[in-house]
């Protein structure tokens, strides 16, 4: 099961004069939960958008299972097995929960049809605890359910790698714990997860490895304990004097 599934080398993204991601290497092993943290503006979301194909990198390569995917459009990346959720949830508001997830099943990596697509939707709704709300229109869901719907729609595309962009943000402690459970279940089903998160409790308890970014660069990499003790990390979060 192990071995790298996702390999990025020298990823750079420039927006005019601003270098949002500045020469980042990333290696994600299959079956891992890989955490990505860093202060605001560190370049986490930009790195995500490079991986999912929303942005094309200014320089650098990026491979999924040895297949080059840098520069492909998001739907093509999704069909190769890497899917992302959005930081600010973007459900298809005037569709039911069921249909939202169905879009993922129909157009995802497997391109399921008919009964097979319906069965997959049922399975994903069950997993994300949305079965009771399948006929509800997405616009009238609570935030916690919309976040789970965002995950469900992505899961229905049958990904190998799932990118989660702050799925625990804005949730209360109970909802947050449910989300952590869900993420663990997804990992246990064999899907590799890369997640950006500001809720430290969630990411520290879940991640097998954590990359810390600051100002577009990777400043630390390791287990939760290792990065928490890393002086460079403490400095980035708390400032120069905290170390002294």
């Amino acid at each position, binding site marked *: 099961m192990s071995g790298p599934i996702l390999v990025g080398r020298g990823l750079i993204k420039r927006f005019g004069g601003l270098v949002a991601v500045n020469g980042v290497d990333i290696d994600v092993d299959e079956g891992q939960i890989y955490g990505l943290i860093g202060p605001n503006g560190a370049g986490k979301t930009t790195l995500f958008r490079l991986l999912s194909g929303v942005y094309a990198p200014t320089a650098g390569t990026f491979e999924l299972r040895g297949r080059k995917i840098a520069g492909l459009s998001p*739907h093509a990346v999704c069909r190769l097995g890497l899917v992302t959720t959005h930081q600010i949830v973007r*459900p*298809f508001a005037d569709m039911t929960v069921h249909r939202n997830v169905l*879009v993922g099943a*129909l157009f995802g990596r497997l391109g399921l*049809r008919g009964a097979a697509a319906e069965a997959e939707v049922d399975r994903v709704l069950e997993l994300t605890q949305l079965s009771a709300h399948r006929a509800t229109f997405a616009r009238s869901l609570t935030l916690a359910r919309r976040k789970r719907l965002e995950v469900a729609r992505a899961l*229905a595309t049958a990904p190998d790698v799932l990118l989660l962009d702050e799925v625990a943000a804005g949730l209360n402690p109970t909802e947050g714990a449910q989300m952590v459970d869900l993420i663990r279940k997804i990992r246990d089903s064999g899907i590799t997860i890369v997640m950006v998160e500001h809720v430290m409790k969630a990411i520290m308890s879940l991640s097998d490895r954590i990359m810390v970014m600051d100002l577009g660069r990777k400043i630390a990499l390791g287990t939760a304990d290792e990065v928490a003790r890393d002086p460079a990390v403490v400095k980035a979060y708390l400032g120069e004097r905290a170390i002294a």
Partner: protein
Amino acid sequence: MTAQPPRLGLPRWLTSVWTQAALIVAIGIVIALIPVVQPRALNLQRLAFFVLWYAIMATGWNIIGGYAGQISFGHSAFLGMGAYVSGVLWYTTKIDPLLTLPVAGLAAAAYSFLVGVPTLRLRGPYFAIATIGVGEASRLFAVNFDDIFGVTLTKGVTGLSLPNYDAETVHYATAAVFVLAMLTTLWIRRGVFGTGLFAINMDRDAAETVGVPTARLQVLALAVSAFFCAMAGTLYAARQQFLDPASMFGFDKSIALVLIPLVGGLGTVWGPVFGALLYSAGLDQIQSASRNPYLPSLIYGVLLVVIVLFEPLGIVGLLGRLRAPLGRLLRPSEGAP
């Protein structure tokens, strides 16, 4: 942009694709029988032609405008393209215009590909404005390509007078094209293609990230849309036997194709038909009853404002609210493909 119709807990057979398809075919047959049952009622036949004519075009427009949510103000380009492709072929080579229906459709689909690939990257008002440009540019082409190397093309603003053609034959062909357009729109609405288009309509970026090939689906939707508008153009050429750029490529036609689905029910299967019925037959009756040339437009304008404010699903939405048996039958269900 489009609200999906709410679900009404109806028996499945009523809203099933097969019931709806049977209904479409039945309506087609009934309309086709008008000249047989009422051979002298020429006014009724004229009325039926124009209702179907608008319904075909509005149904085409609805596929890109209502399903995918890309509002085009330039669909007269495809209407005119179809009318002139068949008209000029008929005029110069004497090919029966009804035989060139698919040729006109495919020519317009190819044309839509040409204009769609660049413009469909745009969204909302920017796409709408670009399509106004497409419509106007197409009209100017038709005005200026009056002939090439002595071969007659559009004859410019003077217009192209065509030979006589049997109105009854056109009537049957129109009913057939109407059935084809309706079955196509129903099939798209209930299928994977339509689900993709609605996803694009609601959030193009989100659709893209879950695997929907948004650019390809939109281009395809525009092509299908153009195909039907162009066939309507051919039917018009065969029936009226006179084409001029101002009416075939007219901005008023483009506007009508936005208003009809909007009033009838944007993004629904039957909305364009109701809209066309009201626009063509309804306003025609008011016109002849009142003798005031501005009254129909006034009534239509007021109706449009009321609908946009209170019932985004137009006439279909109103019927659904009534919960009348008719409304139930016609309502597109929020069903699985």
